[in-house]
């Protein structure tokens, strides 16, 4: 009797286990499947208009071909500006949160940073429009870069903080016990020990902002020419895709697909670099 009860509940348990395993597998299949469908569909739609001329040319009127060379350069310029502005600031905030800011001020800063992470990117765009574009009276690459940097800072700050907290406390004590002042402990031991992780956070932040469109619409605005100065509107892949996708021309739709494929390859490339950087060195 007892043996019967036991084995029936056992069968039940196995059944539930199999069911749950199957369920999680199906969910994974659905999520990954959707992602793969997106990737392949973009490749399928985009590959047709993709050629070398398309990658180096600037936009032309409908029927004359043209390309996204200026948008690729523009996107890279914007990423560069935002990285130069955003990475050092974000990393410094992360160091402050992990190493220096204890107690109430640190908690307040952390709360603000978390809130900033959640701000919709279009709000950041409007904000930069109000404080930079309106006073300067024109759109500019600078304004676009600043908008992207603002999105970047909280992401970089939090990943840096998390990475620094993974550095064992004993390592800090070891350096302090050798007569190292705190700033040398941070710069000479803690940050280098966390460097691969910080680099990962930085690259992920770059990957994240390289796909942003909303904050660029009224800061960098877009352009049909190669950039000549940081003080004028600049093209970017995302805005270019947006403009072409809402246009009424089939040729531009096809070019939007191709530009999407290029953008996706760019993000994929950044992610591969991240993987490469995070390989354990020691």
């Amino acid at each position, binding site marked *: 009797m007892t043996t019967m009860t036991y084995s029936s509940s056992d069968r039940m348990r196995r059944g539930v286990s199999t069911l749950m395993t199957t369920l999680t597998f199906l969910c994974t299949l659905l999520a990954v499947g959707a992602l793969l469908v997106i990737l392949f569909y973009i490749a399928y739609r985009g590959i047709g208009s993709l050629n070398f001329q398309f990658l180096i040319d600037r936009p032309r009127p409908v029927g004359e071909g043209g390309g996204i060379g200026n948008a690729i350069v523009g996107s890279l310029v914007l990423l560069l500006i935002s990285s130069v502005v955003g990475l050092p600031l974000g990393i410094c905030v992360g160091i402050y949160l992990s190493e220096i800011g204890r107690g109430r001020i640190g908690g307040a800063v952390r709360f603000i940073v978390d809130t900033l992470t959640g701000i919709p990117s279009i709000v950041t765009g409007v904000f930069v429009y109000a404080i930079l574009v309106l006073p300067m009276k024109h759109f500019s690459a600078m304004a676009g870069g600043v908008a992207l940097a603002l999105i970047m800072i909280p992401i970089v700050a939090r990943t840096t903080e998390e990475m620094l907290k993974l550095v*064992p406390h*004993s390592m800090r004590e070891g350096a302090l016990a*050798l*007569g190292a002042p705190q700033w040398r402990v941070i710069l000479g031991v803690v940050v280098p020990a966390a460097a691969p992780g910080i680099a990962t956070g930085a690259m992920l932040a770059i990957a994240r902002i390289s796909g942003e469109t909303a904050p660029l619409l009224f800061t960098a605005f877009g352009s049909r020419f190669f950039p000549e100065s940081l003080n004028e509107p600049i093209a970017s892949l995302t805005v270019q895709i947006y403009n072409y996708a809402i246009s009424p021309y089939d040729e531009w739709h096809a070019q939007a697909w191709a530009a999407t494929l290029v953008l996706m390859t760019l993000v994929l490339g950044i992610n591969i670099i991240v993987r490469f950087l995070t390989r354990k060195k*020691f």
Partner: protein
Amino acid sequence: MPVEIAAPKIEVRASTPPPETSGKAKVAVRDLDFFYGRVQALHNISVEIPERIVMAFIGPSGCGKSTFLRTLNRMNDVIPATRVGGQVLIDDHDIYAPGTDVVELRRRVGMVFQKSNPFPKSIFDNVAYGLRINRVTSSNSELAGRVEQALKDAALWNEVKDRLKTSALSLSGGQQQRLCIARALAIRPEVLLMDEPASALDPIATSKIEELIFDLKKQYTIVIVTHNMQQAARVSDTTAFFLLGKLIEVNSTEKMFTAPNEKLTEDYITGRFG
């Protein structure tokens, strides 16, 4: 019913009399209290540590011996909400007096931790770290010389001399701990604090570190915290017994392990508790 436990036989290495000590204490602690928040971890500790001897701190876990060790180079400063009362004099200077340069203090009072904590840098850079930040050396050859000497003092040189540029984390546990000792020795501290330096090591690595301690006391004043009473007996000249944040007894190691003054010490050493 109390179980009678045979007292472990503890062999005391014939302790050499401390050489040329003027009788003056290198470290003198007076009425030291220590608090973690509201919890008092150390009660009214007074002890004198003469120059160039090895003093061992023994006692059960949580008795405050590590905390006490860390008050001697103010490592507890980095723990929030801690408070110190009393005095710690090193060469007659109170290290808790206002205006004390903590960085300078830690240069003079080196420390080796329970868990080896090499930096994720090369072997050479680990040992050179203290020399570089303190700008001890003026040339690269001098730096290399000091690193070599420190590694020799820590009995590690022969094992690593051909791979100084490789990562310190590639060393074995025992080697890492000796590297940490070398790192501490490189800046030539006057006092060396060791917080259970061999607790995570196998017997061979442990005996190497013990031999090292025995050699080092010719030049350094060494304070070692240990859980292992045999180890205390082997390496130290004097022993201090801590219990529940109080210093119960300080005595010569030989006396401590053969005829301690206090009943509590005897009970602990013979394994009746702790």
